[in-house]
């Protein structure tokens, strides 16, 4: 019991591990202490003071999130002193907050609003300062809107950007009453090193950082009878959308989501999982080709290790941070963009729709996908390949707007073609998933046998560890892959840009050598994406991951190369992976961006 401390909270004795905070102790006994700046994923800040409690025998109130529980402590969470202080703190925050809630995107999903609603303060205690401040709104980014008038300076975004992503596009600038969350020289978000990952958006307790939403544009497209509106859904959306519609985390809602999209009025409901399978065909082949060039042709120009390219946050990060390593990034477009390029060519032709009249909408767990779709490189169909990108949250809003009772919808199937997918595609949504999917296919191409893991579950690459290395010896290859005989394929998986930076630093300095690197910008991979329902934390990410692997296990087809619709597109249209046509539609290039 050495590691335990015993204290009393609201008269009830409680034991917690040493190092736990008063807040942790209170939560363990289901006592609710309100918080704003506190977030499970981030370091303790203690700067909003909403969580203050009374420690008997101490004159000042203490911030429960920042104070370790200690033996013999006596804590009051609901004394008069605490209640009055909390009231004042919230009122003071509100006096500088643009509380025009009915015109706020976060209306109904705002932590400050929820606290105010709990307090039921109907009188103005303090002078309203909003009018006197010169707040600005940055609406230039295609992904993220930053509205300083709604900011309470809790700095969750600053900590997110620094700790989880090692980007620090956002920092704290100025001081006192002029203190604000700012980019470098207060430049618009799209001009600075921001990767558009949206992790800050996911953690912002108010409406200060929100995704740029395209809900009305999508409705307009749906209502426009001249348009043929196609929707694609990313792997990670199907295990999280339920949370935006009152279901518990970890529910698989694929079928209901399809039904909902159909009822919203989309002309075709298709799947990014399909193009995830396509990505594996291209990226797996690209990896094997690079290995061949390096091992057989001894080509000094071939860049190894190869990294994945599905995560647009990661792409923008490497463009800013390690531009000299851009040749190492797979040239494959992300599944979203492969889908768009194929939809407005192969698919349009197949269903007899003029691609000029086609609108491709995608539902993504991601805010960076909005930026990705806007990149000038992403017009290989002759049109903007993906027209509009919505986050999982925005789809949740649309479903509510349409008056659908999500939970009572039947399970429906995706339309064909571009609707069928394998389990390998579903796991793209979890960190390690692209690696596992690629190995399932590449190993089989090389050896003619399935990967030597029970149930095709390559467990060494799974999990939530920030950096996970795994290696695999290739034995008994098919004759044409003889050069890989006995090669130990070294892989590493990293998620969260802080981990990504670490791995790339190792590679750059020659400290580690790998063949294949999977990187996802967001913690947990896409399932923890910046566009996923709020809140997202470690516990919720674990539940979504568990759901993703459950969905994979339940799929009839588990390997990308066995997806009949993938086999068909190569036969009818693309020829083979890395063909001329593939290069035209499915591959891209990257640009060097400013480091600072």
């Amino acid at each position, binding site marked *: 019991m050495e590691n335990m401390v015993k204290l009393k909270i609201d008269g009830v004795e409680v034991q917690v591990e040493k190092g736990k905070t008063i807040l942790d102790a209170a939560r363990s006994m289901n006592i609710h202490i309100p918080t704003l700046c506190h977030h499970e994923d981030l370091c303790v800040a203690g700067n909003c003071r909403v969580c203050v409690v009374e420690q008997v025998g101490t004159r000042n109130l203490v911030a429960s999130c920042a104070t370790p529980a200690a033996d013999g402590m006596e804590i009051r969470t609901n004394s008069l002193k605490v209640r009055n202080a909390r009231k004042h703190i919230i009122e003071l925050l509100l006096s500088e907050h643009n509380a025009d809630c009915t015109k706020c995107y976060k209306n109904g999903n705002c932590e400050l609003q929820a606290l105010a609603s709990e307090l039921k303060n109907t009188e103005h205690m303090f002078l309203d300062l909003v009018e006197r401040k010169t707040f600005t709104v940055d609406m230039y980014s295609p992904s993220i809107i930053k509205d300083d008038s709604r900011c309470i300076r809790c700095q969750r975004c600053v900590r997110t950007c620094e700790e989880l992503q090692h980007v620090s*596009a956002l920092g704290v600038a100025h001081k006192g009453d002029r203190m604000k969350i*700012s980019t470098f020289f207060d430049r618009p978000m799209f001009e600075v090193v921001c990767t558009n990952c949206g992790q800050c958006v996911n953690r912002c307790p108010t409406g200060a950082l929100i995704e740029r939403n395209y809900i009305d544009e999508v409705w307009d497209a749906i209502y426009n009878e001249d348009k043929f509106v196609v929707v694609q859904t990313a792997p990670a959306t199907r295990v999280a959308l339920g949370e935006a519609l009152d279901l518990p985390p970890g529910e698989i809602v694929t079928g209901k989501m399809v039904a909902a999209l159909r009822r919203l009025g989309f002309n075709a409901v298709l799947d990014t999982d399909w193009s995830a399978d396509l990505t594996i065909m291209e990226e797996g082949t690209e990896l094997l080709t690079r290995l061949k060039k390096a091992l057989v042709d001894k080509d000094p120009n071939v860049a190894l290790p190869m990294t994945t390219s599905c995560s647009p946050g990661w792409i923008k990060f490497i463009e800013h941070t390690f531009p000299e390593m851009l040749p190492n990034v797979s040239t494959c477009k992300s599944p979203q963009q492969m889908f768009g390029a194929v939809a407005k060519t192969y698919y349009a032709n197949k269903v007899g729709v003029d691609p000029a009249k086609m609108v491709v909408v995608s539902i993504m767990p991601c805010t960076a996908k909005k930026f990705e779709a806007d990149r000038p490189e992403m017009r290989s169909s002759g049109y903007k390949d993906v027209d509009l990108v919505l986050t999982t949250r925005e789809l949740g809003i649309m479903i509510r707007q349409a008056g659908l009772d999500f939970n009572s919808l039947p399970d429906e199937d995706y339309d064909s073609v571009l609707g069928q997918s394998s389990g390998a595609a579903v796991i793209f949504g979890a960190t390690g998933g692209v690696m596992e999917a690629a190995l399932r296919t590449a190993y089989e191409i090389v050896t003619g046998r399935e990967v030597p893991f029970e149930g095709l579950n390559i467990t060494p690459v799974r999990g939530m560890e920030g950096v996970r290395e795994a290696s695999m010896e290739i034995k008994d290859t098919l004759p044409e892959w003889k050069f890989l005989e006995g090669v130990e394929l070294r892989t590493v998986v990293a998620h969260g840009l802080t981990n990504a930076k670490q791995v790339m630093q190792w590679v750059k300095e020659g400290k580690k050598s790998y063949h294949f690197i999977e990187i996802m910008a967001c913690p947990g991979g896409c399932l923890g994406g910046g566009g996923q329902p709020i809140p997202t934390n470690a516990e919720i990410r674990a539940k979504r991951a568990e759901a993703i692997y459950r969905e994979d296990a339940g799929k009839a087809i588990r390997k990308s190369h066995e997806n009949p619709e993938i086999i068909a597109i190569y036969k009818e249209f693309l020829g083979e992976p890395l063909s001329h046509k593939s290069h035209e539609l499915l591959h891209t290039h990257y640009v060097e961006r400013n480091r600072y």
Partner: protein
Amino acid sequence: MSEIETLVKELADKHGRKRESLIPILQGVVEKERYLSDEAMTEIARELDIAAAQVYGTATFYSFLDTVPRGKYVIRVCKTISCSMKNGNEVIKAISDILKIQVGETTPDKKFTLLEANCLGWCHKGPAMLINDTPYTELTPQKVREIIAEYNRK
């Protein structure tokens, strides 16, 4: 290498490239350049391998680390209560009249910038002001006129 790149490199060689080297480097740049341009801050970020927003955040926190161009002589008049009660406002008004600039502005010849400062610690000898690093105390409009005339002759 541009002038600013050389300066930042020299300062980093002198003060180190750790997080705690940031403020001395910023001060060094201000001393030489009179303010921190975005180019200078970007260069510092690169040299220390930290985010530019963090350099900007630190610079904007400190009143003496200017982020806008300043004149050769920066006049900071104390605006706090002790000086104010001893007619500090008259001092500001006098400087404003002589230089034909408002608080926050710089003369067109880039010689003087007029700013207000929080307590300079000369409450017992107010009103007080700083010109660059030199304090002047027990000011009157007449005294201010003489001091500025002296700087004008420099």
